């Protein structure tokens, strides 16, 4: 260290936000960039989203395909779009786990002592994990195509299906950020998050048709947002009714964010 500072340290009061608009968006993007860089520097953080699509496609496809649809390739046509929804929901758990770990670090003390929006670190955490959704969707579509999955509609609709699944993942990540802000240990966030995610993802027509299930389970499916997202993704990728399921899914995405984003921000603020 040099004996004296050469950088100008003459004090200066920072300009208020009003001078430069969109402060919240800029701060959130700066923090999302941090999350993205961290993920890319620790590629093992992407192992789950890379291997899960392969394992689930192979397992369900070969295990159930013959029995339920005659052969694997035919079964994949109904499995893959729904599996995409399940995988994006699984991928969103990590946002809450990382957020919980971040809250324990001194770095977040620094953020809290700076003139940035209280929601910026949370929005940054959600957006920064976009790469996880992209990886899991790309691997799923790549691997399942090799096993015989085909998009029967067109690329634009298929893309819309992907975005819808990712949108539900983003929405659910606010639930996990809330858990991350409330629970002290990243490990407990993961545990509780899986408890939330299993009924959402497996309590669906992911693997088998609704008609085969008891009434109470069918009642759950009538309200489970994943069912609508899975139906919408199937319609958009392999044909079938689209408008209804898409509308319900979008409403759920908006509803989950409207309820859980403020709760997560409030829980984060209370931690201070």
């Amino acid at each position, binding site marked *: 260290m040099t004996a004296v*500072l050469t*950088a*100008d340290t003459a004090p200066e009061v920072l300009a208020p936000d009003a*001078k430069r608009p969109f402060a919240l968006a800029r701060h959130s993007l700066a923090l999302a960039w941090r999350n993205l860089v961290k993920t890319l520097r620790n590629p093992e953080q992407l192992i789950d989203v890379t291997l899960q699509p392969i394992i689930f496609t192979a397992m369900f496809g070969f295990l159930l395909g013959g029995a339920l649809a005659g052969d694997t390739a035919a079964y994949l046509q109904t499995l893959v779009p729904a599996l995409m929804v399940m995988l994006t929901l699984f991928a969103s758990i990590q946002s809450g786990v990382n957020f919980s770990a971040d809250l324990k670090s001194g770095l977040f003390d620094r953020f809290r002592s700076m003139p940035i929006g209280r929601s910026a670190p949370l929005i940054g955490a959600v957006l920064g994990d976009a790469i996880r959704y992209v990886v899991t969707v790309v691997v799923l579509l790549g691997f399942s195509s090799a096993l015989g999955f085909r998009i029967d509609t067109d690329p634009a609709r298929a893309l819309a299906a992907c975005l819808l699944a990712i949108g539900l993942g983003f929405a659910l990540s606010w639930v996990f950020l809330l858990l991350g802000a409330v629970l002290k240990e990243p490990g407990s966030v993961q545990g509780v998050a899986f408890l939330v995610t299993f009924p959402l993802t497996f309590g669906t027509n992911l693997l088998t048709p609704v008609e085969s299930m008891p009434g109470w389970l069918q009642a759950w499916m009538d309200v489970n947002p994943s069912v609508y997202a899975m139906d919408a993704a199937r319609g958009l990728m392999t044909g079938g009714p689209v408008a209804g399921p898409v509308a319900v899914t979008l409403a759920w995405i908006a509803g989950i964010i409207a309820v859980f984003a403020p709760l997560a921000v409030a829980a984060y603020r209370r931690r201070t």
Partner: protein
Amino acid sequence: MSTAFETEGLVKRFGDFTALAGVDLAAEEGTVLGVLGPNGAGKTTMVRVLATLLRPDGGTARVDGIDVTRRPDEVRRRIGLTGQFASVDDDLTGFENLQLIGRLLDLRGGEIRSRSKRLLADFDLTDAAKRTVKTYSGGMRRRLDLAAGLMGRPKTVFLDEPTTGLDPAKREELWGVVRRLVADGTTVLLTTQYLEEADALADAISVFDQGRVIAHGTPAELKRIVGGQSIIVRPTGADSLDAVAALLRRFTGHEPESPQRGVLAVPADSELVFTAVVAELALAGIGVTELALRLPDLDDVFFTLTGHTAADKKEEVPA
């Protein structure tokens, strides 16, 4: 001069534990206020309230005249924080850490680059700028943390035990940085467990114990509270120790003690006694290798004020 920050009757409780039991503090602009106390005395809680990280349960805290609970964002534009645990991101490089802070402070791109480069150079981190922080040593992280706290040219800098765990050479370097900041007009609140550090840097010291300020003053004033200065003599030959002890007893009227082998210390009630002792030693032809009129150090201050030393306290206080 105006007040850079002040607190009145600040109270903070965590469940049954009272971390701050009515703390009054104040620092003039461009000065260093040392907050001295053992672990668990409430120093970090104090800093966290002033840095808007904790809401107090009672009392007020103002930075630059602005209430920290009413207008926290206005306070945040004026402060820099360097924590006890280095608050930088392990997975980012040194440069990226400063870049992130600059972007969050709404600095322009060019300013972020030039300021990061200057600060990295000042803190001897230029060569490590492109390495991720997880490869840094403890001292390097501490320096980067301080650099990050200075990105926004804060008016007031809170340094929470900035030199804990640093080796003595690095500690002295950090002291140089603090002095330079103050020369530029920055106000510094420095918490420390090192009595020597508060003595070296602070214009005024508040001594904390169990959530209270038990003494406040300049280092010299605090030393005066403890009273008596002492004469320290180390005769050249051990065989003259008895003669020196007799001489000291005669001139001061106190019984000399031996704090170390071969050294005698005795309270001196007036400065004149010291010069008389010096003259008498010369007359008696007794050579000395050390001869001093010493003010008490801050360890003595702490002991006098609390009845225990800073070190014994650490064991019994909750973390």
